[in-house]
């Protein structure tokens, strides 16, 4: 039992926080504890959840991708255009997902093969892909989307919206991917020590590119959910969403330096954020306070454990040591390594 607690301490803490948040939310508003309402409110978070799961392997590898909302926009606009043009969803969806995966692969290539810093690269593609989305969408965006495409947003299994089921399925898929495949093992290895991984014959470049492509594909899927839920598609879809997605991933216990973190953590943190936001909105707490609460939650949840450790004197483990950045400036770039290998 004690082993279980220790191994899952992060997740148990999140569960505890969720319970607290739920209690607080239900005290704020009598409408909170209705399961239908809860599930309906939860659908607002599906898009962020999908992007968070897509971001998760990338962060585990010690990188970052802030261009995901822009890829969502491209995906949603392409799907919108396809719908209006009468293309059947079965044909359009795989194509659009492939395009979005391609956008992600471009990020991955620049980061992994060319060796550019991921924050800078995805900062650039954040703007570039957003521009592409606007150009495709045109001025007014896309309206008149056919019911085939919006079905995902208006179908229920019992009282559970299908989009929520999708989130759970995706979460399970990622959990399996990271725990039971070589991709998962390689990802954690790279996140812990990229240089050593490379010398240990881990296919670093390929694993990185796959992670980024997967993130892109998830954003494309989120684009489908957007189109389904909101029945429209514009170039500015999900602009600025990355902050919330990043918050969800970090709150879920995934270390931003890479090498650790679990899907369950990300899922639980999403549930926590959803519980808090929904509770506050049902009680009509002013939006300004909502922002404050989320910001404080982030800082407190990461700062308090560290502060406690600090006071207990375990200072050495807390120094902001940037051990071997996943691929730092002094690592030979993959191109150089290839040449060396001959």
């Amino acid at each position, binding site marked *: 039992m004690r082993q279980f607690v220790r191994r899952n301490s992060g997740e148990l803490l999140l569960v505890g926080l969720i319970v607290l948040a739920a209690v607080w939310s239900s005290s704020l508003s009598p409408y909170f504890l*209705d399961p239908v309402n809860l599930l309906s409110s939860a659908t607002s978070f599906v898009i962020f959840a999908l992007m968070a799961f897509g971001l998760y392997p990338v962060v585990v590898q010690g990188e970052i991708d802030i261009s995901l909302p822009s890829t969502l926009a491209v995906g949603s606009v392409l799907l919108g255009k396809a719908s209006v043009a009468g293309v059947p969803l079965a044909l359009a969806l795989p194509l659009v997902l492939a395009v979005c995966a391609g956008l992600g692969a471009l990020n991955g290539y620049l980061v992994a093969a060319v060796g550019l810093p991921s924050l800078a690269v995805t900062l650039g593609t954040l703007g570039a892909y957003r521009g592409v989305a606007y150009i495709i969408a045109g001025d007014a965006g896309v309206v008149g989307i056919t019911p085939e495409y919006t079905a995902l947003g208006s179908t*229920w299994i019992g009282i559970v919206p299908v989009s929520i089921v999708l989130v759970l399925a995706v979460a399970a898929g990622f*959990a399996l991917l990271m725990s039971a495949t070589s991709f998962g093992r390689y990802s954690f290895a790279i996140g812990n020590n990229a240089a050593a991984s490379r010398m240990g014959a881990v296919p670093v470049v390929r694993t990185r590119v796959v992670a980024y492509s997967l993130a892109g594909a998830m954003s494309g899927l989120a684009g489908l959910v957007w189109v389904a*839920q909101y029945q429209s598609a514009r*170039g500015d879809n999900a602009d*600025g969403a990355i902050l919330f997605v990043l918050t969800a991933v970090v709150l879920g216990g995934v270390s931003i330096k890479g090498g650790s973190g679990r899907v369950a953590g990300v899922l639980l943190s999403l549930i926590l954020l959803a519980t808090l936001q929904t509770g506050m*909105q*049902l009680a*009509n707490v002013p*939006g300004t306070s909502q922002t404050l609460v989320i910001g404080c939650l982030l800082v407190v949840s990461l700062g308090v454990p560290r502060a406690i450790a600090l006071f207990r004197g375990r200072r050495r483990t807390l120094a902001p040591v940037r051990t071997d950045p996943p691929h730092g400036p002094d690592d030979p770039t993959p191109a150089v390594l290839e040449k060396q290998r001959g």
Partner: protein
Amino acid sequence: MFPFARHRHRRARIATVLATAALAVVGCSSTPPQASAPPAGGGEAANSKIFMAPKFTGLAYFEVAKEGGEKAAQDLGIDFQYIGSDKPDATAQIATLTNAIPQRPAALVVSAIDGDAVAPALRQARQQGIKVVTYDADAAVDSRDLFVNQLSYELAASTMLDAALMNSPQGGKAAFISASPTAPNHTAHVRIMKQLIDTDPKYSSLSYVDTVQYAGDDAQKSQEIALNLMQANPDLKLIISSSAVSAPAAEQAIVNAGKSGQVFATGFALPSSVRDFIKNGNSAAFALWDPAELGYVATTAASQLAAGKITAAEGQEIDAGAAGKYTVGKDGEVQYNKPLMFTKDNIDSFSY
């Protein structure tokens, strides 16, 4: 989370997945489940509260409209709540509205950031018996009962052009700054302004730059664009914007650049934002309407609709007391149509 090795229990896992999928497909339905809360209907209890949801709560313009709504609620004896995120984010507004529905207000008064994206949520609200009235920025026509339009698009366009002519009676070249290409009112304004300049003899002295610039209601971006517009068009005389953030910001940019008197910014703005410009003579005129009265009319219309006193049919009359009487027009649009022109003579008489 899944500590087992790759090949163990594989058949069991596949079986579970298939079974769950089969159940899911069988259980699918496309009718939304009903919440267990008591349904709203007509009658006394339903009239008790109205929610006003602006685009976002951080803008002074919406704050003034809120005051009008609060006053209407007071006069009508109903509860009033002001809801929304403090950021201009469409997903946040949709979440706000989704969470407003279970609270069973009698009506929602909404200014939509993305008129199409909020439509599903608004339709859901209407399905549950909640009346939906949009103000300031419309949503999809079939998702709301009424739209209280501050100025018909034609009136808005001609008012801004009139303000332009007041600034520069000899006319001249004009450039347009809008909030975003997806804002239907701004795009309509620009389209009609271009039309009027092309066809109406009253505005024949004006010409325009065809490319519209977008500043996203951001003051700093509006300034940068205004500066660049002046550089790109040395003969520029006017910068016109429907955005209450961009119009005064552009004027400030003109003043900063020392071009006050050569170039003029105008359009819609709160009098408090442009009081100094008008008094100093940098600009001769800005336009707007009374946001408080707009809020008052919208809230009154929503309340009357919820109480069953009026319907959304064309020709119905809304009696907003001191704020006047209004008739419902085509497609549920109620035109408020009371533009105000702020000039040196009257700028001090406005408190907002």
